[in-house]
């Protein structure tokens, strides 16, 4: 049954150097983007993409590598968002310190939750993770003196930061872009480190067969907790980034089960338990939801004359298609689970392998 999983097949030697070079080139190109692109909407989409990559990669550590399907990561995302903004608005603590506090808080909560819920397996663990996230959401909703309840927290502008002569003002989207890019690099590197470290092998052993891993002397609860801890810290980072970028949070945006589900979807659609999977998943989901939200598809349909803007169909599409991105997510998940259980990345790899085999067969 586990044969369906993408086993991290060792890449042939020499290709590692190429992929490092490719990765550096991609990051360099991304770093150069704000120099050429000043359109705030384009930068906004890139920031959303970065956020999704961080969320997906963060979940991937515990869900993908250690195989513990938490559907309650909204808890850590929300803690990241809330701690950062509460510290900034109420205690006037600079967000770049607040974020660290938020990550520490998420880590602490994760370790408590983990040591309780990791005694459970399979579907029971999934249910427990959801219940814990709900408990945290309801606590935030009812702890009005600190969290402002359902009204949420609206923060003023983010204080500027000074490095000697240069000051960075968080007014335009450019500083957020660079911060996001740096966080993406850090998160993806963390995934890479996990995949190739001894710790990562322990995680994957637990994922493949916990009892076998246990019998080989791997401390299950400890290693699951380590995986959850790493995952929670990066999830809190994403939450904190979101809160500072949007400057408004409430329980129904950062603490709902939708956030948790979205994190899982990014990984499933891209390819779970791989470094590139969450990146691909985030690319697909952000591209899809933004084209729908901006009514691009309807505009294209109208401009090529498939439907007229005045007709009832055109009006209906314009009215409704922009809200349909969750519907498309749902369809996408169903399709991916049924037809590409290893995600887009796994599907691409498999069809490439098949093509290579076919080519080898022809030669013979």
């Amino acid at each position, binding site marked *: *049954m*586990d044969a*369906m999983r993408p086993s991290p097949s060792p890449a042939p030697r020499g290709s590692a150097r190429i992929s490092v070079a490719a990765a550096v080139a991609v990051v360099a190109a991304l770093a150069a983007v704000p120099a050429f692109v000043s359109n705030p909407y384009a930068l906004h989409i890139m920031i959303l993409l970065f956020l999704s990559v961080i969320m997906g990669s963060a979940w991937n550590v515990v869900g993908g590598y250690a*195989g513990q*399907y938490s*559907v309650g990561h909204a808890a850590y995302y929300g803690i990241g968002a809330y701690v950062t903004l509460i510290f900034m608005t109420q205690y006037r603590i600079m967000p770049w310190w607040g974020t660290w506090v938020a990550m520490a808080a998420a880590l602490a909560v994760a370790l408590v939750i983990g040591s*309780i*819920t990791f*005694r*459970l397996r*399979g*579907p*029971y663990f*999934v*249910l*427990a993770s*959801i*219940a*814990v996230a*709900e*408990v945290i959401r*309801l*606590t935030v*909703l*009812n702890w009005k003196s600190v969290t402002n309840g359902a009204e949420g927290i609206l923060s003023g502008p983010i204080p500027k930061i000074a490095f000697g002569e240069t000051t960075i003002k968080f007014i335009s989207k450019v500083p957020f872009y660079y911060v996001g890019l740096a966080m993406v690099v850090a998160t993806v590197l963390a995934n890479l480190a996990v995949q190739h470290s001894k710790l990562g092998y322990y995680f994957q052993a637990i994922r493949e067969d916990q009892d076998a891993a246990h019998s080989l002397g791997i401390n299950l609860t400890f290693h699951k907790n380590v995986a959850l801890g790493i995952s929670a810290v990066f999830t809190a980072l994403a939450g904190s980034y979101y809160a500072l970028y949007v400057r408004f949070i409430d329980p129904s945006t950062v603490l709902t*089960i939708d956030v948790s*589900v979205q994190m*899982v*979807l990014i990984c*499933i659609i891209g390819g779970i338990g791989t470094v590139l999977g969450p990146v691909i998943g985030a690319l697909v989901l952000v591209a899809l939801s933004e084209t729908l939200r901006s009514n691009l598809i309807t505009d294209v349909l109208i401009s090529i004359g498939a439907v007229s803007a005045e007709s009832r169909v055109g009006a209906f599409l314009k009215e*409704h298609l922009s*809200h*349909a991105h*969750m*519907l498309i*997510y*749902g*369809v*996408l*998940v*169903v399709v991916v*689970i*049924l037809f590409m*259980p290893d995600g887009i990345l796994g599907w691409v790899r498999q069809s490439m392998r098949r093509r290579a085999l076919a080519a080898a067969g022809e030669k013979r």
Partner: protein
Amino acid sequence: MALFLQSVVSGLLVGGVYALIGIGLTLIFGVMRIINFAHGDLLMMGMYGTWIAFTAWKLDPFLSILLVFPALFLWGAFLQRTFINRVLGALPQNQILLTIGLGLVMSNTAMFLFTSDYRILTTSYSSESFQLAGLSLSSPLAVSFVITATITAILYWFLMKTDTGQAIRATAQDRDAAQLMGINVRWMSILSFGLGAAFAGTAGALISPTYYIFPQVGQPFTLKAFVVVVLGGMGSVVGATLGGLLVGVTESLAAVYISSGLKDLVVYVVFLLILLFKPAGLLGKSRM
């Protein structure tokens, strides 16, 4: 004391509906070992079905069960045949995600068709209540409790006395052995998913006079159904019935004695405690 009794009784009335939702979920889990994350969305479909029947033909919500039950049964059977059946041997995670995906499709299609406006179904008796032994009972909830009890009783009879019911129980006990005994396991799976969906839809019809109807209404009910089912032991119909009543009473008492904002919190904390200390449920290992 009167307050205590009053809240216990109102809790039981609401708990009856929870029990019905939980029974559907536990039936599906028992036979297929699949946790249906789209369960609340099936309930949502039942609510909208009732609402449409009420606004279009002035059909009484309780009568519309006669429509909603078969409709949701067919829908559930279709879902099982086309989607769920393909992942029966897959990783549990993938099964969960498939049902999450199906749920997203259902709730967002509802949003597409009906917008996210809150709908209310106001009957002449929506806010009516009557007195019984000094306690005040909400009429629609009391009627729905009676209907729930009847349906549950019929289900027990069906599972215990009929051949098909016994075949379902056998499939739940041991799928392979049941197949070897000549039971059509595929058909039993379709049947139980259909029944599970029909129960969820019926519960939706029953609560539609007292709840807001909107596309995302299902999610909290999905979570609550999990609580109900785990409390009673996954796969146990008797357990789900008791679990439903227990959750209803816990909620009602928590609302009265702690705070109405915290009632769900209390339920989830109880749920976590049960998961940790008695994961097989309060009734132990019994199945169906």
